[in-house]
């Protein structure tokens, strides 16, 4: 019984991170039609900012959320404003834009990663923060991971509320549904798309901050997280934010179960699930 709870809790913690990493990607694709392969690099930058601030200045990693979030937001805004917007103006055909934007994102991945190597080197980095255990009902949990889970859920819910309850959130959703009609209603589409990309980068930054509390960091850590985010996004339905959250938790629990059977097969199980899903229901669990 305790082992089942353990698997479940581990799955939820993993799922929280997966959900947080995928929400941003899902929105970038769902609204801006950018399949951002460089998503994981934004996570990496967020994680390393936290590492730097914590090890050099002793700043609490939770405070880094306030630093890394805006930094990544601005970075995302600039990337969209100067690169993806230019591409969008040059490729009016939507399908061509999707393909080319993926390749452009791959180039951005290289640039950010190599700049990261200049700044932070290639060694594995890490720090310990709240690395003690807490006992709940006789089961041992590590404190920092519980904190990660809490903040991941909190940030996801906050993001969802932003999208559904606020005016800019509504404008973003309108832009996703019908860009032309939205622009006729007075929504500045280009601003919305940039905002949306920037918010996605910010969510990635948050995920990076949280990750760095309990996991090892390396400048090439981005791509694996991107790949998992892609799986989660497809699982939940491309462009569906609640779908990504749900998909994140489902994938986390599956990962945790497979991990107890054979750790070497976790990633293979993800891909298998992912490919079967693409064949059976490409629109995902909550997709339209």
């Amino acid at each position, binding site marked *: 019984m305790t082992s089942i709870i353990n698997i479940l809790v581990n799955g939820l913690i993993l799922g929280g991170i997966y959900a947080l990493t995928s929400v941003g990607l899902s929105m970038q694709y769902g609204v801006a039609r950018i399949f951002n392969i460089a998503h994981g690099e934004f996570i990496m930058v967020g994680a390393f900012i936290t590492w730097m601030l914590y090890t050099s200045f002793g700043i609490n990693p939770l405070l880094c959320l306030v630093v890394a979030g805006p930094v990544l937001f601005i970075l995302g805004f600039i990337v969209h404003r100067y*690169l993806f917007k230019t591409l969008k103006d040059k490729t009016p055909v939507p399908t061509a834009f999707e393909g080319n934007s993926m390749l452009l994102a*791959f180039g951005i991945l290289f640039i950010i990663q*190599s700049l990261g190597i200049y700044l932070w080197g290639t060694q594995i980095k890490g720090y310990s923060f709240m690395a003690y255990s807490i006992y709940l009902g006789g089961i041992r949990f590590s404190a920092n991971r519980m904190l990660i889970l809490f903040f991941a859920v909190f940030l996801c819910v906050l993001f969802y509320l932003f999208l559904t309850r606020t005016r800019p959130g509504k404008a973003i959703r309108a832009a996703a549904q019908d860009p032309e009609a939205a622009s006729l209603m007075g929504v500045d589409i280009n601003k919305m798309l940039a905002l949306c990309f920037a918010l996605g980068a910010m969510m990635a930054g948050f995920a990076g901050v949280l990750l760095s509390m309990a996991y090892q960091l390396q400048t090439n850590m981005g791509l694996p997280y991107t790949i998992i985010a*892609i799986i989660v996004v*497809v699982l939940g339905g491309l462009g569906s934010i609640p779908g990504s959250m749900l998909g994140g938790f489902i994938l986390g629990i599956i990962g945790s179960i497979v991990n107890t059977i*054979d750790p070497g097969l976790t990633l293979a199980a993800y891909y298998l699930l992912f490919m079967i899903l693409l064949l059976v229901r490409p629109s995902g669990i909550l997709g339209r």
Partner: protein
Amino acid sequence: MNWKTIKYNRYLYPALYILIIVLFIAIPYITAPYTIILLSSIFMYISLTLSWTLFSGPTGYTSLATAAFFGLGLYMAGILGDSVPLIVAVICGGLISFILAFIIGAITLRLRGIYFTIFTFGLVELIKHLMLWWEINIVGVRGRFVPRADNATVFYILLAILAALLLTTYFLKSSRYGMALSSIGSNEEAAIHIGINVVNLKIITFASSAFFIGLTGTIMATRWSYIDPYIAFDPFYSFLPPLMAIFGGLGNLFGPLLGAAVFSYLQETLITRFPYSYMLIFGLIMVITILYLPNGLIGLYQTIRQRFIGGKHADTSS
């Protein structure tokens, strides 16, 4: 004047082709070993890019499965090793990729657009992780050694693969199958309605492109001499072919060829000259290519030429 040009082309082009072939065959005898190795790498990228373009160019289905077929070819060389002649191993590598692509094509080519792309991307990772698991748990060792072949042999086999690929691309392009393929790219529904067997055509073309990728993989393994799943199924090899093709220009047969040649030469020299900033430069080239050279080098050439000749015409008409 027209008549003159025709006559000129009729003698010049075949002579030019023969000269190029003779030159390439003579290369291992007349140049330094480094040139052969460099040329082999360039040929590898050209083959991968042309194979990718064979299917993805006309149909518009962006495949990211190149690394899967390439890696399968590499592994074929590792598994067969010295037990069969090299040429047999190479053909086996091509065939296994053909078979896998055939199966994958049969189940996935119903997927359109981004879903097909994501699926092929996932395929590479799935094979990589299954292979890793298999090597660690069943074989007990990660990676394997491949018996080396000498540089000249590798060069000639790559040259032969490239020649076969060029001929295939050329004949496909001028045949009715090539037309049918591009009709899929422009409008798949319309292609179905005018009676093209879209599914079969896509599967066969996809599998043929994988065949050439597999051939290339097997022969390259003998040059690298050590492979493991991370090397063999590196997603890098999936992203390079579309990039090189776009860099050269997708609309023309020579576009991808030129793109791959220039790009891979740049890459090889960048790695040796600037090992540390190589990735940064590479990323910048990628971004600039996609943003500012949408029709590739060929497009750039045509624009310049148009401007030059166009200017002349404007003068005479006025």
